[in-house]
Each structure stands twice: as structure tokens, then as C-alpha cells.
């Protein structure tokens, strides 16, 4: 299993720079997720690792060896495409066995007629038959072996694509948004199947997605990308709990992290709307700050208690939890700003507390759950120490 290193890797398409400079490494057996919005260059990066797209500059290394000029087949990778890319005229069996056939194919097999005879013979070679059957059994494809992709469901096609990538026992699996064409239920099921597969084969997986739920549930390490640049590298917990900047804070999490621009005066924080409240912990030195709070870190309290004064504007009942969208109130009691221009402050509450729209309340939080960002750079700021205090009564 190779350790993959990318040193100063960049990619230009004509005058357009898709990836300016990329430096990262992927360890053996890791499940790395490249996460980012559409057009951020994550699929291009994956294709460069596979050898399907050339590298403009920089070095891609497998175990320290420069593989920039290696062909995709020499790199020994498996690639699962977003569209599955199954061979439509071949049966499931032929699709799965295809990489094995190509491994056994020799140049002289191209001679007319010999080619057809050799393919026929190779499809019946015991080791190829056994390996194909074994993989099909693992992915519960045995009853579908003689069917063609056109007659399979999305989930079945996805499993065939996975089986085809598994059959050669590659050292590196590259998956390009493989679940994006599936419905929500099937996506959840396939997510756990891919995680199980990773645990079973213990190989390196590089998985591209724009879906942060997929990233959080499957990854051992996430690289968040935007406009071809790395925003943060970390474990799912690090990415979620301590986003490196406001982009990561807003991109990871649904609903996203609440980012409230505040001005500090001692322990007092004043929101743009004018409301003032006391922060229950240490603060960074800057006067102008962005207060970052995950929705589940906020508590809905009676309006009389100290905290951020809000009015509930949206109630989304999700069964096991409720998402409240709140608008910050002016000191006089009115809502702040324009209805559309002003971001909602989201609060996640377990169960169903039956909160009505229009309810006025105060939002409390613990200092430990706060992230601070610079309004100028968007980067995270760190207070000297953050004691576990609460701003609620």
C-alpha cells in the first residue's frame, strides 16, 4: 500500500488555474475524504492521482517515488466513477472480470479471431472465475451475474462498480462522488457498505464528495477544499469542532455554524443588531470578532435570562430533533434588519419541545463550545484560556 505525497501539485486548463498549489500526504489504510463545493478542484485532484489527468507542475509520489508519468494501469489504482462507468454491452460477470482479463491479456491476443477466442478462454479460466464469483458473493451480486447494467437498479450498478474495482485487489481506491446518483435511503445504506468495505480490505481510500454527511460518517481524515486550495486538513471531529476558518465553519454542518459578528468591550459583546450580552469565558484580544456557535451548542431559554435575545421565525420538525431558525432582536424588542438579508441563528433541540413561531427567547451557550474568527481574514482566533462557564443563569 503506497503512502501518497503531493508536493506543490498544480493544475491549469489553458489560462484557468484549477489547483494553484496542493501539498498533502495520505497515509496507508486511511479513508481520506476530499470535501468541497462543486468546482473546487477535488475531482481534478482525484483524477490526477489516478493518472487520468496530467499534472501541470509539482510531484505526485507513491512511497516517495515520482509517479507523474506513470499510466493509470501502472499505478494499480481502482477508480469508481460518479456515473459508475459500467460497460453497457457486458454482463455483470464480464464487467467484474474485465480488469482480470486485461491483466491476463497479451499483445499477440490482438490478432483477429485470436482476440475473441482468448477472451472466451480467459472468462473460463478457473482463477478468474473463482475471483469473480468471490467478489460477487461479497457484494451480493451472485443472482445478477448474467444481467446487463441497463436492467439493474442504481444501487446494484453501484455495487457492480465497486466489485469491478475490488476484483484486482488494488492498493488504492479512488471514489469520485459514487453515491450522488442514489436516493437518500440507498445512499445511507451504501455509505455504511463502503465504510465496512474499507474496514475489511484495510486499503487506502480517497473519496471525493460535496456532501459533508458522507465525509463526516466515513472519513478518517478530511481535506476541505475551496477554489483549489486546502482550507483545512483534520479528522472529522477536528473539522467539525474546530473549523480553521469561516468557510469550513459554514460548509461543514447542517444547519451550518452560526457566525455572529460582534464587538467586544471587556466581557460584553455587542451584536450588529445592537443587542448586548455577557460572554461567559475568555476572549481573543481583537475588538472586532466573529462568534461561531454550532446550533446544538445553543440553548433556548426564557427571554428574561441573560443571553442573545431572539424571536423564533422558523421551526423545522425532523422527528428526533427540531431545528429553530431565530432572528436576533434589537434592544428595543424589534427584529434586526431586512428579513432576507439577515441570517437566521439556528438552534438544534432534541425531541420536540413544541416551540411556536413568534416565541421570544434568549439563547445561552457554554464558553467551551465557542469558536472565534477574525472578520478581516476569516481565520480562527484562539483565546488564552476558555473556562467552562455558562452565560445562562
Amino acid at each position, binding site marked *: 500500500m503506497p503512502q501518497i505525497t503531493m508536493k506543490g501539485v498544480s493544475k491549469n486548463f489553458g489560462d484557468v488555474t484549477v489547483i494553484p498549489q496542493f501539498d498533502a500526504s495520505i497515509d496507508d489504510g486511511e479513508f481520506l475524504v476530499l470535501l468541497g463545493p462543486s468546482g473546487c478542484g477535488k475531482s481534478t485532484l482525484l483524477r490526477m492521482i489516478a493518472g487520468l489527468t496530467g499534472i501541470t507542475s509539482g510531484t505526485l509520489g507513491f512511497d516517495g517515488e515520482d509517479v507523474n508519468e506513470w499510466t*493509470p*494501469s501502472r499505478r494499480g489504482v481502482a477508480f469508481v466513477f460518479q456515473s459508475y462507468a459500467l460497460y453497457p454491452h457486458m454482463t455483470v460477470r464480464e464487467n467484474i472480470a474485465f480488469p482480470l482479463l486485461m491483466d491476463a491479456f497479451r499483445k499477440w491476443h490482438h490478432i483477429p479471431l485470436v482476440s475473441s477466442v482468448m477472451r472466451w478462454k480467459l472468462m473460463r479460466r478457473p482463477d478468474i472465475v473463482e475471483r469473480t464469483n468471490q467478489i460477487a458473493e461479497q457484494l451480493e451480486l451472485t443472482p445478477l451475474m448474467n444481467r446487463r447494467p441497463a436492467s439493474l437498479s442504481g444501487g446494484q450498478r453501484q455495487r457492480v462498480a465497486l466489485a469491478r474495482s475490488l476484483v*484486482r485487489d488494488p492498493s488504492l481506491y479512488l471514489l469520485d462522488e459514487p453515491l450522488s446518483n442514489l436516493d437518500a435511503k440507498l445512499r445511507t445504506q451504501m455509505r455504511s457498505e463502503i465504510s465496512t468495505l474499507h474496514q475489511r480490505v484495510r486499503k487506502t481510500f480517497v473519496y471525493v464528495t460535496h456532501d459533508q454527511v458522507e465525509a463526516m460518517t466515513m472519513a478518517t481524515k478530511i481535506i476541505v477544499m475551496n477554489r483549489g486550495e486546502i482550507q483545512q486538513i483534520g479528522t472529522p471531529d477536528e473539522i467539525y469542532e474546530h473549523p480553521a476558518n469561516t468557510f469550513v465553519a459554514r460548509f461543514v454542518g447542517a444547519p451550518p455554524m452560526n457566525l455572529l459578528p460582534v464587538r467586544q468591550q471587556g466581557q460584553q459583546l455587542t451584536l450588529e443588531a445592537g443587542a448586548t450580552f455577557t460572554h461567559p469565558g475568555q476572549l481573543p484580544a481583537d475588538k472586532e470578532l466573529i462568534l461561531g456557535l454550532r446550533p446544538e451548542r445553543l440553548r433556548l431559554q426564557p427571554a428574561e435570562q441573560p443571553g442573545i435575545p431572539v424571536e423564533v421565525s422558523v421551526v423545522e420538525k425532523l422527528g428526533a430533533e427540531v431545528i429553530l431558525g431565530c432572528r436576533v432582536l434589537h434592544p428595543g424588542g424589534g427584529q434586526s434588519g431586512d428579513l432576507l438579508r439577515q441570517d437566521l441563528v439556528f438552534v438544534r433541540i432534541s425531541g420536540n419541545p413544541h416551540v411556536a413561531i413568534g416565541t421570544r427567547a434568549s439563547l445561552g451557550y457554554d464558553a467551551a463550545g465557542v469558536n472565534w474568527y477574525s472578520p478581516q481574514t476569516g481565520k480562527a482566533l484562539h483565546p488564552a484560556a476558555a473556562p467552562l462557564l455558562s452565560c445562562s443563569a
Partner: protein
Amino acid sequence: MTEQTLLERPLAVPAYSARTSTARRRLNGLLPYAFVIPPALYLLVFMFWPLGKQIYLSLTRTRLANPNRSTFIGLRNYERLLDNPDFYTTLKITLIYSVMAVIVGVAVGLVAALALNRPFPGRTLVRGILLFGWAVPNVAAALVWLWIFNERSGILNTIVTGLGLERVSWLTSTEMALPSILLVTVWQVSPFVMLVMLAALQSVPEEVKEAAVVDGADKLNVFKSVTLPHILPTLQLVSLLVMVWSIRRFDIIYLLTGGGPVGSTSTLIVKLRQVAFENHDLGLSSAYGVVGLMLALSVAAIHALFNHRRQKMSSR
């Protein structure tokens, strides 16, 4: 207006709407016929009626001098055909010409399409130049080729003699006439094949080709395993079209050789003209036409059979 009248008004509207929607439904029901009738009439008058007339004529003794006085003779014309050794020669020439036109024309067109499917500077210009043969009218093309093939002043013989070889009788020797005509046919047909195959090649999903590359396939295997199966239906259709066109091609052959020398380029259609307008035998010439029709229909039937089989396979 009383309250009762006000209540009645909404009732009157649906009654009116119902009438309108019934009329509209009837109109909608007739609309497909309005679209189908003109082409159906066209086919009836210009295709099926002459076809029926031709089949009928093939069963009669009819002279060109008096086409309205025919005597029904059953299958006598077909018996004459089968008893005539010239018919088998004509049939053989037609088959050789058509099959070779398909093999060489489609192969050249496909290779050109594969070359043009790769990006290179000036690709659009080359594509335009290659289409020239298809765009030139048949008569103009035949006249140009007559000059090219000219034994004394033609460019081909100028090249041949320039290479120190003897002049070739391109259109006047029995050995060279059919290959020469095939050359012109390929020149005319291959740009069309190229254009259609280029469209088919451009619809091959890039990701499937890339999947084959990742799976270890070399270029030839990518072509055989991904590209060829994808373009095969188009290839079959184009082959069918070229075959049918070749069976009924008249102008190029007639203008270049007139079926000669010694009948060496006399295909069914050229022979049909000769029997009808030189031998004045409309009945026998119609029998030639029916044989040509049967040949074209059997090629189409084979194509339909392949198509049906493929669809059945892919839905399994």
C-alpha cells in the same frame, strides 16, 4: 340582476366549456391524421403505386413502344432471367460492387472519423475538405473523375507514367473498370460515413473509456471493448445505407462506363435501363428491378434482425 341569475351563471360556464372541450378533443383526435396524410399520400403516389406497377409489369409482356398494351404472362419474365447467364453475371457484379463499397467505404470513413475524433490543429478545416466528396453533385463528380481517369491526359496516368509505369486503361479495361468505379464510390460515400461515425464516436462516454484505461486496457482494447460496441449500431445502420445505395446506384456507373466494357460494370440498375430503353422490354426490365428490390429488402431484413437481437440482449 337577481340572486338566482347570479347563481345560474357559473352553471352556464361549465356547459359552454364542456362543448368547447368536446370539440377540442375531436380536433385533437384528427390532428395526427392531418400530419400523417400528406406523407402517406406522397408515399402512396410516388412509391407504392409505381412499385405495384413495376411488380405488375414484371408479370407481363410489355414493350416500351406501347406500354399500355401488356399481356399477362405470369412468372415467364423471371424464368427468362434465371435461364439467362448474363443475369448471374449482373447479380455477381452488383453484389461485388455493393459489398466492396460497404467494406472499403465504411472502413475509410471510420478511420477518417477516428482520426478526426482526436484534437489536432486545423481539424475543422480538414473535416470540411474531407466532406467535399459527399457535397459534390454526382454528375459533376463523374465528369471530374472522367478527366482524372482519362487514359491520355488524366492526372492518374500522368502520375503512373511519371513513376515509369505503363498507362492504365482505368475505365476501358475489364479488369480495371470495376475497381475504378469502386474508387469513385468510396470517394463519394466515405465522407458521409465519416460524418455519421464521428457523431457516434463523440457520444461514447468518456468515463467508460477512462474506466477501461484504469482497468488496464491498452488503446486497442479500449477501442474493442468500449468504443466499438458503442458505435456498432450506427456502424450497422451506415453499412445498411451504403449497401442499399450501392445496389441502386446508377448515375456514377452509367456516366463513367455505361455498364461496360463488355458488361464488366453492369449492375442490376444499369442492366435494367439497358433492357428497358435499348431492348425496349419493360416487362423483363421490371423483373430486374424487382430482383434489385428483393436484394435491398433482404439486406434491410438482416439489419432489422441484428437490431432486434441486440435490443433483446441489452434488455436482459
